[in-house]
């Protein structure tokens, strides 16, 4: 077991170290780091923009790059939080609490240094977890029939929609909307066009690029336009030599780093609890076990190290269910899965054996990418800090062009551009009604496979709906679903306002900050 995993990893390095793959990985993490730093741009919007550009690249390179954007943006997001006190990337919102006070004390550089180290530690553990856990999951998952896959998908959808931010009910509503959008187009078995309103361009279904760019591009721009005040760059003069933490700071952050890593990797295993929840939980834990909890919020280095480590270990761990089971935990993973499907690769447990180059290449590229990120972030910190001053008014119009040309180039069809406008307006309306559109993407990506497996399970069981409870593994998943719902109802009824996601968001920052979608 151990040996085969290492052998496969070795093979993965062979794939990831091919020059063009290194290049894609570098571009991915570089762009990721950049958008992470820029206030008002999130990894979701960026991955959606880059998605149409990857159609021409080989699948391995495309996935390495898109994944790189995701974890690269986590490095950048921390810079934004610590130096500007702008929690524009949800996973790094808690880092503001102690990161910014440190900056005010003149230790911002050290906080960044510790962030880079803890990020690397967290990420390394997340990757290791993936190397050994994913193949085991696959062995189990390959035994699944349609009924088991169906219940597992139901669990994934339910967790993804109720554990994310905002009201769980609204999350479920968004997931169902996503499933419905996934239905648009010709029925796979009978060819009947469904919900196409007679428009032939919709017979192939809604384009994932148009959906993602509408929801996370246009809708987000409409939300953020004229809402970002000039950033206060008073504290952003950080140089390479400032990054070195003192011996005491270093000694205090090491245990915090490992605790954060552990919490993050546990959170990654529960579908739906992405990096944001991991970082909130780890900050709360760190504060609770600290000898001086009253000092948190005044610039404790542990309060930076712990959530950052957990964010990164959870970011890497997020890939485990996505790549091994084909079930994404959040919208970013859904997009990456969508990218795989565009390349003609069927996600699911057979992915590792059928496309080992993608799976092991991706894992190996995580190491390479994280090393590149450390190199990018340490000596070049001055460059990233300069990027903080790029105003939003130049960003979003440029992004609009990429939105328009991106959706156009998916099919060379102007209809898609119209589609993205409509989706953008609807997405903004949903945002105004307090819906978080991220689960839409989750439902959209899983929808067709969910329906297919559901139909197949019903066919095999001759229309017996109880088949989902009769199969033991499937029954466990259904049981977990019920448990999840009961837990949510219980938590809501007991203390409606004390959920971890809403708990500790810093409210005292001076600027109105649009949170970029996760």
């Amino acid at each position, binding site marked *: 077991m151990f040996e085969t995993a290492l052998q496969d990893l070795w093979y993965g390095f062979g794939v990831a170290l091919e020059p063009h793959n290194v290049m894609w990985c570098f571009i991915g993490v570089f762009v990721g780091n950049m958008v992470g730093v820029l206030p008002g741009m999130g990894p979701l919007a960026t991955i959606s923009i880059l998605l149409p550009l990857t159609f021409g690249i080989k699948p391995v390179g495309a996935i390495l790059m898109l994944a790189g954007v995701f974890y690269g943006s986590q490095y950048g997001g921390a810079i934004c939080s610590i130096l500007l006190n702008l929690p524009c990337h949800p996973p790094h919102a808690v880092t503001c609490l102690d990161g910014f006070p440190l900056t005010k004390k003149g230790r911002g550089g050290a906080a960044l240094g510790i962030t880079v180290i803890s990020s690397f530690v967290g990420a390394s553990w997340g990757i290791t977890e993936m190397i050994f856990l994913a193949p085991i999951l696959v062995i189990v998952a390959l035994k699944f029939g349609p009924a088991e896959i169906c219940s597992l998908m139901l669990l994934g959808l339910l967790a993804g929609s109720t554990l994310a931010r905002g009201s769980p009910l609204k999350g479920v509503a968004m997931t169902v909307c996503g499933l419905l959008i996934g239905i648009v187009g010709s029925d796979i*078995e*009978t060819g009947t066009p469904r919900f196409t309103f007679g428009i032939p361009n919709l017979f192939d279904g809604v384009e994932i690029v148009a959906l993602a760019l509408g929801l996370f591009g246009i809708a987000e721009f409409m939300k953020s*336009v004229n*809402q970002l005040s000039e950033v206060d760059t008073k504290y952003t003069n950080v140089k390479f030599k400032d990054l070195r933490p003192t011996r005491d700071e270093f000694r205090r952050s090491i245990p915090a780093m490992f605790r954060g890593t552990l919490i993050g990797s546990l959170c990654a295993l529960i579908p739906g609890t992405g990096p944001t929840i991991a970082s909130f939980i780890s900050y709360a834990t760190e504060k609770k076990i600290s000898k001086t909890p009253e000092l948190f919020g005044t610039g404790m280095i542990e309060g930076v190290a712990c959530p950052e480590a957990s964010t990164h270990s959870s970011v890497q761990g997020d890939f485990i269910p996505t790549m091994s089971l084909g079930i994404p935990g959040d919208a970013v993973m859904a997009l990456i899965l969508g990218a795989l499907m565009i390349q003609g690769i069927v996600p699911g447990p057979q992915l590792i054996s059928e496309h080992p180059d993608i799976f092991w290449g991706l894992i190996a590229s995580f190491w390479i990418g994280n090393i590149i990120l450390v190199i990018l972030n340490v000596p070049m910190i001055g460059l990233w800090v300069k990027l903080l001053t790029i105003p939003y008014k130049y960003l979003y*119009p440029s992004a609009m062009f*990429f939105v328009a040309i991106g959706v156009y180039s998916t099919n060379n069809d102007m209809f898609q551009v119209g589609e993205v406008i409509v989706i953008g307006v609807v997405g903004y309306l949903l945002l105004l009604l307090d819906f978080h559109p991220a689960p839409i993407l989750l439902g959209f990506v899983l929808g067709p496979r969910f329906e297919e497996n559901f139909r197949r399970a019903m066919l095999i069981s001759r229309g017996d709906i109880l088949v989902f409870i009769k199969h033991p593994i499937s029954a466990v998943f259904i049981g977990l679903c019920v448990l999840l719902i009961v837990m949510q109802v219980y938590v809501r009824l007991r203390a409606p306002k004390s959920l971890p996601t809403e708990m500790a968001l810093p409210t005292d920052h001076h600027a109105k900050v649009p949170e970029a979608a996760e």
Partner: protein
Amino acid sequence: MFRTLVKKRDFYAGGLMTLLGAAVTLDSMTYTLGTLTHMGPGMFPLMLGITLTFVGVLILGTAVVTPLGEDESILPKDREWYAWGCILAGPIAFIILGEFFGLVPATFACVFIPALGDRTATLKSSAILAAGVTFFGVLLFSYVLKIPFPMFKWGL
């Protein structure tokens, strides 16, 4: 009670989902439903439609039981109608100019018009930004990625 209810955001959120769910449910009846063993194209949408209606009603229910919050207005505090219009007009201009005049004018308009939406933007700053993006964008998409979209053309 109804007076306060119609002020709540969740009332509209729940109402929208309920209506959408009902519409989907009714529409999926027009497709073949089939049996559980051999499901037709209408069965799965029907199930989703019913679920969505149910969830919508539950959201409406939470709107009824929760007290009126402080900020329940659906539109944000700053109503940026002009900026929103500019952002949406960008891709619309992209479609029209792209169909009739080619990639270069379409790109320019698609950056220029949304850029005007920012309060501090001027005609000049927007034009400079649009020109820059057009230059590099066309370079990237026409020469590197070679998408089939003529740079200039006249008419359909």
